[in-house]
């Protein structure tokens, strides 16, 4: 069965055309990148501000619990049948707007929770000491809280990335865009090799993204360089 799936994946004619693997892959990548950027732009400033001021903790922490309990499938379906509709949306394909909104919604909880917790868990003694040294609020945030919280914040963004990729796959259940379409198409045509081929693509894509995110997280951590320097 895996050999059938592999021969499906290596067949170049399967990759071309508007319903080929290539088109779905580009669609899913576009969806993932766009919605992660939007979620970071919306979620990070709010969560960082709340964390810095030490307010709204209940909301910031519980948004993740709520996000876990709500099924992605239901949200996608409500959005695509409800007000947003399932129309073509630029390069994002059918039900593109509904999918983008759902992706942003499910990317926000890990970003918000981790950014808030990351800033709050910066050692309060360090914050007090820097205040004693005459730093103002903005300096404390940019010089102390942000660099110390960055590893936790980046972990949140990484979780969001994986979540977005998974959600983009599920869009296929509402006949939306993305690589999941290869899986649902395989089910519709009773072609198990196509289902498995699609599943392999999605799974490998998720693992590659996770790997890249882990490497980026390491490269971006400012404290890592500091730790490495010989004292």
């Amino acid at each position, binding site marked *: 069965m895996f050999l059938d799936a592999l021969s499906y994946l290596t067949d170049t004619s399967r990759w071309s055309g508007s319903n080929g693997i290539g088109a779905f892959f580009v669609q899913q990548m576009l969806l993932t990148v766009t919605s992660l950027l939007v979620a970071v732009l919306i979620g990070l400033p709010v969560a960082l501000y709340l964390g810095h001021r030490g307010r709204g903790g209940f909301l910031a922490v519980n948004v993740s619990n709520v996000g876990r*309990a709500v099924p*992605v499938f239901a949200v996608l379906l409500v959005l695509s049948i409800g007000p947003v509709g399932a129309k073509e949306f630029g390069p994002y394909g059918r039900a593109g707007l509904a999918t983008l909104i759902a992706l942003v919604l499910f990317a926000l909880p890990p970003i918000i929770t981790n950014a808030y917790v990351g800033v709050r868990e910066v050692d309060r003694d360090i914050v007090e000491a820097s205040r004693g040294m005459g730093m103002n609020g903005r300096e404390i945030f940019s010089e102390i809280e942000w660099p110390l919280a960055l590893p936790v914040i980046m972990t949140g963004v990484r979780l969001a990335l994986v979540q977005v990729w998974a959600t983009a796959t599920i869009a296929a259940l509402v006949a939306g865009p993305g690589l999941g379409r290869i899986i649902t198409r395989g089910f519709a045509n009773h072609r198990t090799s196509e289902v498995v081929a699609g599943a392999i693509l999605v799974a490998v894509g998720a693992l590659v993204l996770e790997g890249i995110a882990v490497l980026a997280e390491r490269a971006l951590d400012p404290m890592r360089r500091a730790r490495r320097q010989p004292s």
Partner: protein
Amino acid sequence: MTLLAPTLAHLTSEGPSAAVAAVPQCYIDNDWICGYYWKDYRTDLVDATTQHLWITVVSVLVGLIAAMPLALLARRFARLESVVVGATTIIYTIPSLALFSLFLPWTGLTSTTVIIGLALYSLTILVRNVLAGLRSVPDEVRESAQGLGYGPARLLFKVELPLALPVIMAGLRVATVSTVALATIGSIVSYGGLGNLLLRAVGNQFKAQIFAASVLCVALAVLLDLLLVIIQRLLTPWTRVGQEA
């Protein structure tokens, strides 16, 4: 097709002129909230909820049963720990639609396909929490028990597991709530509980059905979470002693 079925039931004895008016307006308008839907489709809703519930419970239990020995092995052999944690991270990264589909060649269109996938997801959460829970047991407590002559098995069951219970239960709650939500994706192999109702509504755009299934799904997650909180309170009465005093 299913949209028209319930309307016949409402052609009551009010005469032919009243027959059209007897079709509930919310079916005609395809409203999100439709009281008649909950009544007319009661058996569908009950069946779907029941399937959702047993798939969730079985998956989480299988995950828990598998997580225990894995966590104990990972704790015993330091080198195994990174392997176990790494492997569970990989599983957790794979999207549900893909994970279910990968088992298709072996388990086919059965509930086993969904249960294996969901059990693997809960396993990844539970292994970490069981490990963290066992780590949270203070060394002094462990050493005191050993000094009192507790063997490894008695130490585990009488001292370590009870003390680790709050952290394990926290993992169980996260695993259960996310399993309820993920089970809807099982509809791809026709075993998605309330997800089956959602998938059917993709074709006929039946809004009342989408709304009812979504609400029941979230309600099920909240109820199971509450149930686990109550179980935890009953299992760990000592954690409340300080508060009551």
